[in-house]
């Protein structure tokens, strides 16, 4: 008879209506965002950041340019530092990531041989202007290794163990088999321009 299926459906919605008042834990699924925040999972990845140990000057990155080349949307731009004689140092002078282009895939983290770049948990990055304010420079990207240990303890433990096994301490040394070739650093303008 016409109407019983409709009534059945209406009983479901009425049940949910009542449930939202008598048992909000199950009946209401929304999170009141600015006040309440959902805990992100440990593996959650958003945008990359650079790791330093101790002082911001002591960063792990050696400007090898691997992440920049592997990055699918090409959002990383690196220029290595040069000393007075013009010799290339194992340290980036410029390390820019355009967050407007980055697509959070996490490939930079996977390919980095020096464990210098990791994906952050920070997600409240809204800006009023999308070109320059979302272009993050080295200073904005650098975060202490303790931050990494805090947001991803499991990964931190695993990576520190492998690093200890390899015998790297403090500032990363080039590992055999993957020598950085800073001379090859691309000099083209950033992909973000």
């Amino acid at each position, binding site marked *: 008879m016409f109407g019983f299926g409709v009534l*059945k459906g209406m009983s479901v919605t009425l049940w949910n209506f009542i449930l939202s008042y008598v048992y909000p834990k199950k009946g209401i699924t929304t999170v009141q965002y600015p006040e309440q925040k959902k805990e992100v*999972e440990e*593996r959650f990845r958003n945008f990359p950041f650079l790791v330093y140990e101790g002082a911001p000057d002591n960063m792990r990155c050696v400007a090898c340019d691997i992440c920049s080349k592997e990055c*699918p949307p090409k959002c990383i731009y690196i220029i290595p530092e040069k000393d007075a004689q013009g010799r290339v140092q194992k340290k980036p002078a410029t390390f820019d990531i355009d967050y407007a282009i980055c697509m959070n*895939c996490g*490939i930079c983290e996977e*390919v980095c041989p020096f464990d210098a770049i990791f994906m952050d948990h920070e997600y409240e990055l809204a800006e009023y202007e999308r070109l320059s304010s979302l272009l993050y420079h080295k200073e904005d990207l650098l975060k202490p290794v303790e931050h990494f240990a805090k947001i991803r303890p499991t990964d931190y433990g695993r990576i520190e163990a492998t690093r200890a096994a390899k015998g790297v301490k403090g500032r990363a040394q080039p590992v055999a088999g*993957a020598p950085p070739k800073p001379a090859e650093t691309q000099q083209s303008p950033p992909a973000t321009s």
Partner: protein
Amino acid sequence: MSDTAVHSQEPQLLEVSIGPQHPSTHGVFRMNVVLDGETIVKLKPVMGYLHRNHEQLAENMSYLASMPYTDRLDYICSMTNNFAYAMAVEKLAGIDVPERAQYIRVLMAELTRLINHTLLVGFLLNDLGAFFTPTLYAFREREKILDFFEATAGSRMMCNYFRFGGVKADLPAGGMEQVKEIVKNYSRFLDEFERLLTSNEILRSRCQNVGILSKELAVNASITGPILRASGVNYDIRKVDKYSIYDRFEFKVPLGKVGDVYDRYYVRILEMRESIKILQQLLKQMPEKGEILSAKGAAAAKSPRMWKPPAGDAYGRIESPKGELGFYLVSDGSPKPYRYHVRPPSFINITILEDMCLGQKVADAIVILGSVDIVLGEVDR
């Protein structure tokens, strides 16, 4: 004043352009519709508003670098897109996949099927005019699966989880319990969903005998997926190809008889129930520990820019929730694919829209479009 228009016996046709900005064309899809009153006389689908040059991009980067881009094809089911692409590359380079990784892959693919079908039913009801209630119930359940994806892959929608020869990371601690909880509760949710929808007379009268797709036309137009099965053709690549480890699970393929919107809706509900069966068996069979990335795969993942598969070509296909999703790759031995082609199910399924819509009402066209289940990211690529 001329009054020829008034006296002319020709029916006055109204040409309406539905989309690309329209509440329910599922993205930036446009239908140029010619109407006689409310009846559709002609319909022309217009696509391409979301074209992002996916194939050409992929031909200009390493094999692994395309993986995150495949997430963005059908952005509701990124896991199955990854699956198909990984299968194609594995075929190309002859990479084997360890046992546990196979199970994780099937687990993710079936969870994705649950997500896609649940969401589709929700959005179909939106197209039918329900005020978001089924959609939000669907979102409520999808959230639980996405939480699991986030814990495992690191991202809720753009998972980028599969790697050639395995998966990126093992399940997290407590991941198995999370999946078991989801699988346990999902059939109860489906019961609730069906109580809300299936017997509803308005839904039935809106959906039954609307947008009928005949068996012959479906086969001739190379339609795949639940739409084809709703028309009564027994073709499921999980059964036909038995790829990955699908031959280890007992499951049936639900088939419709009429091939209308209602069949398409209900076949999907039944498919979800079958998926739950697969998941239950999978959770029992899954090995506790094991490798998740084979040695060859690990080598490929280490330096993707340098990794070169042997020259040749390969076509990897899976039964994605929307139909047959295939990746065709031609390699010339260089680190970049020589040719990269996607066979997107949404795109091919949408081509018969006009045949299904002719003679129906405007409201039906929207519902038929909804029942075809397209994602514009995949249609336009």
